[in-house]
């Protein structure tokens, strides 16, 4: 018994097809879907920001316990400063908000880089090479040679001599293995996404229409 799927399924199916049509060429259906997507997604984040950030982080705290949260007025004002860019004469005022935002997170990032990346990665590269069995060579030796040769590739301020040029070349080879492998590794996950869309089109939309279930 054919059974016409509901309006929701139709909307989703037609939008899916419109997006996929871009693979063939740009066309009005894709353009419609793309414009709608841009508009809806922006509206979506207005809703999310308002309901999940501004209301719980700014409006409710100020409303419920002003004494504890009076200082939140400052970020509110800093947020307004961002809009000073639209007032030509005093556009520079918006720099304050931007500079505080950027510098705080950049400071946080600095600590994360040294503390969370350089030191632990260095610790990881320090492996004992006391035994010369196949496991040590296959895993530990190759690993540390890889790390250090890649690092030597990243030297910028020193002219390469015969030795460093060879080591840097080895570093490039490690990079290429890594890029090739990571590419090959990702194919599966991406195909799974496509399977998901085709499942929807075939099982939820086409099959009910032609009476299969």
């Amino acid at each position, binding site marked *: 018994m054919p059974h016409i799927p509901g309006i929701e399924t139709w909307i989703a199916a037609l939008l899916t097809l419109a997006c996929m049509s871009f693979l063939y060429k740009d066309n009005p259906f894709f353009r419609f879907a793309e414009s709608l997507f841009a508009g809806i997604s922006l509206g979506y984040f207005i809703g999310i920001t308002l309901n999940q950030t501004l209301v719980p982080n700014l409006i409710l705290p100020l409303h419920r316990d002003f004494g504890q949260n009076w200082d939140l007025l400052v970020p509110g004002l800093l947020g307004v400063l961002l809009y000073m860019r639209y007032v030509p004469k005093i556009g520079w005022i918006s720099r304050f908000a931007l500079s505080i935002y950027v510098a705080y*997170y950049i400071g946080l990032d600095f600590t994360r880089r040294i503390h969370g990346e350089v*030191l632990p990665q260095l610790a990881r590269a320090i492996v004992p090479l006391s035994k010369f069995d196949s496991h040590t060579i296959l895993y530990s030796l190759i690993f540390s040679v890889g790390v250090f040769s890649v690092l030597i590739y990243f030297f910028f301020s020193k002219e390469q001599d015969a030795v460093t040029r060879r080591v840097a070349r080895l570093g490039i080879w490690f990079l290429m293995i890594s890029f090739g492998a990571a590419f090959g590794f990702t194919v599966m996950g991406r195909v799974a996404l496509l399977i998901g869309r085709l499942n929807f089109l075939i099982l939820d939309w086409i099959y009910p229409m032609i009476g299969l279930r």
Partner: protein
Amino acid sequence: MRTGVLSRASARVPSFAAPLTASLLVLLFRSALAVAPEVSPAAPGDLPAPTSFTAGDRPGDSGNAKPGAERYVDTTAKDGTVYRYEIRTVSAADTSSAVPAAGGTSAASGTVAAALPAGPPLVSDPVASHDNWFRTEKTNSFIASVLFLVILLASIGAAKSGKKIFIRRIAGLNAVDEAIGRATEIGKKVLYVPGSQSMDEIQTIASIAILGHVARATARYGTDLDVPNKDPLTFASAREAVRGAYLAEGRPDLYREEMVNYVTYDQFAFTAAVSARMIRERPAAIFLVGYFFAESLILAETGQSTGAIQIAGQADPTQLPFFIATCDYTLIGEELYAASAYLSREPALLGSMRAQDIAKAIVILLGITGIIAASLGATWFAGLFKTQ
């Protein structure tokens, strides 16, 4: 199987003068333990009772630390108040019925009332927590940070006072002028995407710095520039950078507000819109520089199909394979951060690049020393670099 639970006992005995400490940890010697204040019968034979445990300060926190796996951390202890902790064994059969109530002090005694055979209590020395000035467990990263800062400032100082600094060729950056030149020749625009992340990401800041150079070049040649954005703050910053570049080149007349524009906040809506723009407007040069996620391949592969010269750059390795596969030039990892020094040849930037090289040399040296030490059995050396 025996299991148990540890909860803070009401044995919080305010005690004599003890040094102030932070959160209290109780080291467990068996997993089958419970804490309780009251005296109970002896432990059953098959389970050895703990012989000792320590309660003490966890150094370097501001009082309220989170519980760890094998230790109990008291997050409710008040700074300056002195406590004693008690620990004792109970059997699994009892805890399964009694333990769910645990949580507060009164519940702890409830646990014990039901938890028959229980071992004799062990009582800790009096301890208390306090507010610390330094996280001792982060000493290694502190030293590393200070060392890096000193090297950086010294190198910048040396470079500013006229020390010549060599810089090796980076193909992707040499191609920047070539790409903009070609766009000028054929009269098409340059598309610059500064990644999809916000200004809290250093790669975005590096990208904005490169955008400044690109915008100066387009201002010089009078080439059209288009900078679509996903993140609103990156948008605000990119707009400042492009406007500043056109002013600095003395061509404010060529600057248009629409050059830097906002698209949408969603990753894939942004990708769809920018891909469509590539197909419709056929820019001559495309820059994909900054921090990208899965959108990287859709953008770069679409750009590739338009025949534009493509230059990509990302410091994070995850999307590099896709850029390498689809772009004419790719700035890999640290090359992204070397770009502004390379393009501007400004002494301060060259100096900081030199500092990065010195730091890398130190890392390699420490690494090789560490491998030798570890091979000789000195495993503590690698431990110096472990962070918490």
